[in-house]
């Protein structure tokens, strides 16, 4: 009986391809849009999280100035000293590593290629704190730092812009007035929320101070990078750092901090919850489109209900039982909904795969949303395909036949 109903249902579908197509269309657009939006939204969340964690998960950055906003200007505020970094590292147990950073923007030249680059002068712990890996060559060492050797490591963007296809290791580039040897190429990190991390040149702090910009004061450190010991409460750590820094900068109790501490974990949490909100918004939009698809199916079914009621009347009159007719309609509705759902899933897969590459987010197949969308489409299809048939099959055959 089931096989029979299936045969009749398939025959009935093939006889009215336009109706079948419109039904399937309604379902598959709904399914495809909800899966695509949720998957891409999740990909974006994941991408943000990955980039934040590539900055270093327990990373704190100490900067001069009151912080963000209108009072956040660092103009006229004294920078830090190398000693500040040493003292903080010695006095706070939960600091795993600390590095003073001096940055400068200088022109860099290799052969005929010239560009402005941001030069970072720091100590060798900086690589560990910021999770830099070496792709080729080597990092600079403490010996390089002590002697102020004319060496640097470069990020991939700098390599591409200055060297093109040439091997940068061992080559010398002109930075400002000095000639500096490239000893290492950093592994790429990609775009973070705050610009191209690979556009960087890193050298020993002493090299930057002595060879490139000259040293006018000991207050020439414009940033201190700190990584905390794993599992540290960052709020307590920030409080400790604040207390020591206020002392060292001779701030009275009625004076505001003239430095700020940037905590990547807080930023990660904020960005994470923002993108999650975005994903939920997208899912809501997609849910509406699934609903619209469902209403489309309902319309098709209702428009054809007169014709189908007569069909049910004919089938009953020539000896079909109500349950046979209903089984046929059920199989029809399930078949169309499943085809629509499957086509929707395939389309969503293709869309996600393509779009994920275009907007550069990781593509991660979400089984849950696929199952939910498919189940929803099946329920909508069956509900709207089956309910009118149920009503018609309850009629006396002659009333179904006479239905106008």
């Amino acid at each position, binding site marked *: *009986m089931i096989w*029979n109903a299936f*045969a*009749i249902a398939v*025959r009935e579908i093939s*006889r*009215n391809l336009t109706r079948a197509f419109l039904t399937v269309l309604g379902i598959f657009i709904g399914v495809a849009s909800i899966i695509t939006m949720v998957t891409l939204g999740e990909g974006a969340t994941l991408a943000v999280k990955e980039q934040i964690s590539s900055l270093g998960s327990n990373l704190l950055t100490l900067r001069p100035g009151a912080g963000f906003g209108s009072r956040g200007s660092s103009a006229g505020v004294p920078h830090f000293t190398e000693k500040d970094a040493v003292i903080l590292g010695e006095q706070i147990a939960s600091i795993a590593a600390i590095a003073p950073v001096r940055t400068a923007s200088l022109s860099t030249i290799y052969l005929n290629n010239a560009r402005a680059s941001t030069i970072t002068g720091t100590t060798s712990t900086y690589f560990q704190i910021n999770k830099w890996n070496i792709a080729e060559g080597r990092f600079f060492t403490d010996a390089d730092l002590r002697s102020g050797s004319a060496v640097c490591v470069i990020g991939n963007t700098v390599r591409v812009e200055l060297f093109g296809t040439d091997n940068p290791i061992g080559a010398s580039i002109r930075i400002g007035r000095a000639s500096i040897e490239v000893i290492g190429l950093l592994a790429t990190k990609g775009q973070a929320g705050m610009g191209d991390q690979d556009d960087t040149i890193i050298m020993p702090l002493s090299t930057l101070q002595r060879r490139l910009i000259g040293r006018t004061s000991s207050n020439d450190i414009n940033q201190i990078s700190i990584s905390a010991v794993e599992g540290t409460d960052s709020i307590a750590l920030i409080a400790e750092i604040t207390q020591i820094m206020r002392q060292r900068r001779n701030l009275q109790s009625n004076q505001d901090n003239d430095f700020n501490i940037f905590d990547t974990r807080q930023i990660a949490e904020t960005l994470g919850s923002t993108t999650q909100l975005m994903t939920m918004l997208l899912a809501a939009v997609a849910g509406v489109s699934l609903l619209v698809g469902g209403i489309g199916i309902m319309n098709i079914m209702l428009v054809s209900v007169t*014709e189908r009621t*007569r*069909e049910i*009347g*004919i*089938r*009953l*009159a*020539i*000896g*079909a*039982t*109500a*349950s*046979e007719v209903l089984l046929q309609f059920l199989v029809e509705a399930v078949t169309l909904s499943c085809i629509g759902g499957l086509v929707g899933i395939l389309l969503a897969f293709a869309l996600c795969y393509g779009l994920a590459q275009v907007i550069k987010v990781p593509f991660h197949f979400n089984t849950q949303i696929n199952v939910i969308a498919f189940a929803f489409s099946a329920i909508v299809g069956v509900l709207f395909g089956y309910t009118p048939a149920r009503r018609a099959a309850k009629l*006396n*055959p*002659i*009333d179904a*036949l006479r239905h106008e």
Partner: protein
Amino acid sequence: MFQALKGIDLTIHRGEFVAIMGPSGSGKSTLMNLLGCLDTPTTGSYRYEGIEVETLNANQRSLLRRYALGFVFQGFNLLPRTSALENVELPLLYRGMARKEREEKSIAALNSVGLPNKLNNTPGELSGGQQQRVAIARAIVTEPSTLFADEPTGNLDSVTTQDVVEILTRLNANRGITILLVTHEEDVAACARRTIVIKDGLVASDTTRS
């Protein structure tokens, strides 16, 4: 409540050819729908071959139609966009008959109503007379013991009317199928041996030609 039929007492024997006549609204179609188990009476008793039809549920009435009754309607009631062959096969499909046997029987039925060349035409591609012949083929393909024809010639011209009447007469004479024919055309009713006239829901006359 309006009563289409007010009190009908009838016995129809196996193999009879009965014409039911009467003016519009007299209740003749209602009578036929009740006898054909397409409708259920509010009160009264109807026995078909000894079966108490009013005690049957909808499912059992469907099975009775499937195995014993055939129908021809004024409006043909063929499935649209469905070939003549598939329309005729439909009742056999519900009987669970295998495909090959189904096709052979359907082709034979279409042959017997004179449509051997229209197997793959849909109702839209057939004339009224041809559609009605497909409907007759569909009704007789199951070899029913009783055939109900509700104004089968109502939508046809005089030439095709004659064709349909001939087919019905032949079915009754050659195969012994009991036929109940509702009509308001005297010359169509003339092919039946027994004529029952219904008026205002009652039997006005019941005559049998010798």
